[in-house]
């Protein structure tokens, strides 16, 4: 069983486009939407929810009526999450990391770590395969933990059936949710674009994948909008022994098809469709070989 995570560093390079078209072409597979605070795969895959579970996130400190305002908690909080005035103690939920130091040092047991429901995750059926996806409550933290839940659920299914491939659509950026989506996978596909911003972010996400020892491939989307930058990406890859598994042409039909919730590969005359198919064919050996 192989797992591949599709990442980008920079947002909007085409991860979900590539992921969804791979999902359509694959067999004996499961799909995972690991972009939990802005999930988009369901828009294309029309999942029917089979199972739903609550996501109980990491703990947050909560002050109760026993508080004597000694300020010991504020003194020791490393995350600037506690503000202390002569009348009360306030916890900034956003900054609190649930480390438990305040709970430990409070002399009267006035601070307690509490876990709360911060979202939901779903196992669903789609036309092509099972999809595990999630919804993080707006503004909630612990997106990395939710990605872990979703990944565990997908692996449980994969190991119980004869699944050969898990396709994971990752989040933009290089932080917790991305790292959680890379945990233990066989391959990372970095979808990048030939823009200065794209190149800058590509190098960062490449470093992360390399740091976690994951075999990495690169696909350059809309490569022909800036041939010079495309060459720069290709040179960087050559220098660092990263396989450029393919390049996808800029195709003005693509945004229109996407907006109509269509799959690019269903339009074989589209240059982008040909390119995506070629990339998939190159991957098949790695996935099923």
């Amino acid at each position, binding site marked *: 069983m192989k797992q591949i995570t599709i990442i980008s560093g920079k947002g909007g390079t085409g991860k979900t486009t590539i992921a969804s078209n791979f999902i359509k072409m694959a067999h004996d597979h499961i799909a995972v939407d690991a972009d939990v605070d802005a999930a988009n795969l369901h828009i294309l895959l029309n999942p029917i929810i089979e199972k739903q579970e609550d996501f109980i996130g990491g703990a947050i400190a909560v002050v109760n009526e026993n508080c004597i305002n000694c300020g010991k908690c504020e003194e020791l909080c490393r995350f600037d999450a506690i503000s202390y005035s002569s009348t009360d103690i306030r916890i900034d939920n956003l900054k609190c990391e649930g480390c438990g130091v305040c709970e430990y040092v409070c002399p009267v047991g006035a601070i307690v770590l509490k876990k709360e429901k911060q979202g939901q995750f779903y196992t669903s059926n789609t036309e092509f395969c099972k999809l595990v996806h999630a919804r993080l409550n707006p503004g909630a933290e612990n997106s*990395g*933990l939710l*990605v*872990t*839940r979703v990944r*565990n659920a997908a*692996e*449980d299914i994969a*190991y*119980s059936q004869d699944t050969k491939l898990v396709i994971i659509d990752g989040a933009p950026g290089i932080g*917790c949710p991305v*790292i*959680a989506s*890379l*945990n*233990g*996978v*066989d391959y990372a596909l970095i979808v990048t674009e030939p823009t200065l911003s794209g190149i800058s972010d590509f190098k960062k996400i490449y470093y992360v994948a390399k*740091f*976690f*020892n*994951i075999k990495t491939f690169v696909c350059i989307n809309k490569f022909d909008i800036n041939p010079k930058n495309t060459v720069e990406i290709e040179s960087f890859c050559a220098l660092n022994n990263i396989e450029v598994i393919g390049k996808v042409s800029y195709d003005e039909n693509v945004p229109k098809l996407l907006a109509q919730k269509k799959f690019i590969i269903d339009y074989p005359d589209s240059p982008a469709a040909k390119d995506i198919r070629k990339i998939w064919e190159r991957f098949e050996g790695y996935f099923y070989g």
Partner: protein
Amino acid sequence: MKICITSTGSSLDSNVDPRFGRCPYFIIYDIGSDTFEFIENGSRQSMGGAGIQAGQVIAAKEVSAVLSGNFGPNAFRVLQAANIKMYSGVSGIVREAIEKYKNGQLVETSSANVESHYGMGKNS
């Protein structure tokens, strides 16, 4: 003497789960009394270091060996420090894996068999 098997379910008829840190259940089987208990693996919900935490939980159970599919370097390090033998590449039904162990058909693993890096890599 007790051994631990990573399992997809809570019974001896469940399948062996190939993951150490992120399996859903651990089966702790007592060879002497031919009895077993199951533990739900709480470590699997951790974003990182699942193998580390699971290793400590199992070490506290005083088992002599763990049977699983794969051990990442972090789980390996913890179990090795606790002098617990590891057997990787084990699959099939838990009951049958136990029989294979009793019959000496399993080969001990001398090193982690999957990659990792600081508790975040493959199968940690």
